[in-house]
């Protein structure tokens, strides 16, 4: 084959590639093109997240019932420890505190599990990354979407708990939807950032549980920040209250619980919630894209 004379003899590899319009294999597409490719894979992203969700409980006898039973048990454990033993309610009436606690646990778990799934999105799926072509952002986005679906199951439990403690469905429950959308955007951005870090440093998977636990205790999942920090400097309470996890929890509580009024929310709470979501979703996406061609390196 190689002994046949050709008009292309003497051309360098790059020159030959340019002459026939060949492109560098595995090069990173431009941002707009990348978004287009990702959108083209939306069915895969959805199917992959649903498949992961289903596969989770497929060996259990109760099967998909665990989707609801797991959050319910979680809520029961937290109630027992913080509501009964530690009495962290600090003067909150019981019919407010229990939905307050359960909402906090579920909403925070949504962010927490998105982060943990994000860390392992690339490093835990190297086989997939090294076998098939798709925009790599599909993986972290898909994992965040899986957590959103998991949360929707938890919402069933949450509704039952709310109604059980006297907060009946009302118009403000509709606010749950924008709150969830914003939190999902925030989580997805965070998962994208974590995925890039986790791809180069898999050790993060060992470290993150501690970071997340600290974040959880600092965000007022099982206590009201203003009440608990009443005797501490004001700026500390402010910082804790403005952190995204606390913001999204408070929004959900405000929407859901009768006795949890707007006096518990920091000012401009929706603007802050939207700001966090936009910042992380856009920033995280661009940050992840910048390293696109390097994912999959061993």
């Amino acid at each position, binding site marked *: 084959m190689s002994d046949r004379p050709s008009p292309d003899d003497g051309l360098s*590899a790059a020159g030959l590639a340019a002459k026939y*319009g060949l492109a560098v*294999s595995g090069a990173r597409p431009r941002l707009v093109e990348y978004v287009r490719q990702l959108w083209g894979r939306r069915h895969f992203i959805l199917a992959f997240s649903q498949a992961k969700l289903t596969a989770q409980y497929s060996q259990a006898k109760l099967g998909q019932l665990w989707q609801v039973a797991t959050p319910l048990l979680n809520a029961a454990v937290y109630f027992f420890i913080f509501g009964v033993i530690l009495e962290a309610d600090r003067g909150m009436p019981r019919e407010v505190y229990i939905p307050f606690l359960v909402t906090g646990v579920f909403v925070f778990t949504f962010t927490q599990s998105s982060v943990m799934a994000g860390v392992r999105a690339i490093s835990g*799926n190297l086989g997939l990354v090294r076998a098939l072509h798709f925009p790599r952002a599909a993986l972290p986005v898909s994992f965040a979407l899986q957590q959103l679906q998991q949360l929707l199951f938890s919402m069933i439990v949450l509704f039952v708990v709310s109604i059980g403690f006297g907060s009946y469905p009302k118009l403000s429950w509709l606010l749950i939807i924008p709150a969830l959308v914003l939190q999902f955007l925030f989580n997805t951005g965070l998962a994208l950032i974590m995925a890039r870090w986790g791809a180069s440093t898999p050790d993060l998977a060992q470290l993150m549980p501690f970071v997340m636990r600290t974040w959880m205790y600092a965000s007022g999942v099982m206590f009201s920040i203003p009440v608990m920090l009443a005797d501490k400097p004001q700026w500390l309470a402010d910082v804790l209250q403005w952190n995204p996890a606390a913001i999204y929890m408070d929004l959900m509580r405000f929407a859901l619980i009768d006795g949890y009024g707007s006096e518990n929310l920091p000012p401009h709470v929706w603007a802050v919630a939207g700001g966090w979501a936009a910042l992380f979703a856009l920033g995280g996406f661009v940050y992840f894209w910048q390293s696109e061609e390097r994912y999959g390196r061993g």
Partner: protein
Amino acid sequence: MADPIPGDKIPTVIADELHIVYRVNGAKTGKGSATSALSRIVRRGDSPGVRKVHAVRGVSFVSYRGEAVGLIGSNGSGKSTLLRAIAGLLPAESGHVYTDGQPSLLGVNAALMNDLTGERNVILGGLAMGMSREEIKERYQQIVDFSGINEKGDFITLPMRTYSSGMAARLRFSIAAAKDHDVLMIDEALATGDRSFQKRSEDRIRELRKHAGTVFLVSHNNKSIRDTCDRVLWLERGELRMDGPTDEVLKEYEKFTGK
């Protein structure tokens, strides 16, 4: 499969001084104990705990439309790594690979989940390869029939973990082979399933080859290389040892391996 018109060769894949290096964590020394890991970090040698494996060393070649290229070499000589690099799935340490269109590896194993039914895996695998939902719906029956999973009863609605290893391999190949590719790369996919399925899959690969611009085949079976390829690249220790017509290279290779 020679070129249709000599002198009118259109390149589809160009590899230019390609190097691939794997970085392996936690394999620096034989001892994997925590204390040795800690001492490595404290001592701050060059990138602690990471060992580099230079899998492909400076490989250059040009392949043309209509060619079927075989890749041979002993285990661990870098054949599969080279395929992945051509497909753009493994970033190159240095050097470049230029391709016409998107080369695809034949295989979807990594996207499938054992806990899901065969049915859902067909859909998931198809989507993972970039097929649309309509395309999958169209080819679904074809995939299932080809795999022969339902020959012994309704197995496609059972989770894949209940399949025998042969059945699972058949389904995986059937899903992977359902899509047509520009530049197709096959990594020892021929040797799956029982005899009748092997024959069927060989036919399917021949068919895929007809539609594909260029085919790369990695195999340890010299007969299947001889049957399908007209050019062979021989890799040894990550270096291109020989590149030429199938018969010439295979003769040298057989001499080398002592057959």
